[in-house]
């Protein structure tokens, strides 16, 4: 890829990333308001919006990995592995807290937001690790 087209592609990816992050953060807020309305149509719309809100961000991440070089792919592989392990700990912690009677039921929103945060933290941590001098 030529330097100019590489730059344009990076700028496009950046704007797509920002846009998808806005949708990712905004969709649950709107979906919660729709749930509060209580009508069947509003609740159906809340489910559709709540679920589809993360799709643009996932698409952007997928494209970053697909178009990335071997280092980007390795970084996402390592980060994904750590995030998966962290998610396992988070889910099992929620399970045992419920079983032991410390929680009445797990808040699923805390879980999926937790997964997302774990993924982002794993990505930042992995990037930091690879950029440090040995």
């Amino acid at each position, binding site marked *: *890829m030529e*330097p100019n087209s*590489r730059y344009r592609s990076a700028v496009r990816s950046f704007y797509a990333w920002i846009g998808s992050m806005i949708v990712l953060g905004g969709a649950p807020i709107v979906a919660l308001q729709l749930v509060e309305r209580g009508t069947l149509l509003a609740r159906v719309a809340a489910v559709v919006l709540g679920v589809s809100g993360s799709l643009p961000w996932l698409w952007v991440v997928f494209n970053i990995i697909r178009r*990335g*070089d*071997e*280092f*980007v792919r*390795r*970084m996402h592989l390592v980060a994904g592995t750590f995030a998966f392990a962290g998610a396992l700990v988070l889910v099992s912690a929620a399970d045992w807290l419920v079983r032991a009677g410390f929680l009445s039921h797990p808040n699923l929103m805390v879980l999926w937001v937790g997964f997302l945060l774990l993924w982002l933290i794993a990505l930042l941590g992995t*990037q930091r*690790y*690879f*950029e*440090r*001098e*040995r």
Partner: protein
Amino acid sequence: MKNRLRELRAERGWSQAELGVRVGVSRQAIIAVEGERFDPSLPLAFKLARLFGLTIEDIFEPDEGK
């Protein structure tokens, strides 16, 4: 794996981003290879070797301690 990438790049006065463009990878990839945190694939190692007019063994050296 140890390597002489930083030294070779500095000799030519190239930035990490410039070297990345020449071999078709990101600046982050060059940073990670130079920092010896990331071992490049064979195709990338061959590209680097060809770019500097050297062999892979001239640039990369196995880390015997590992």
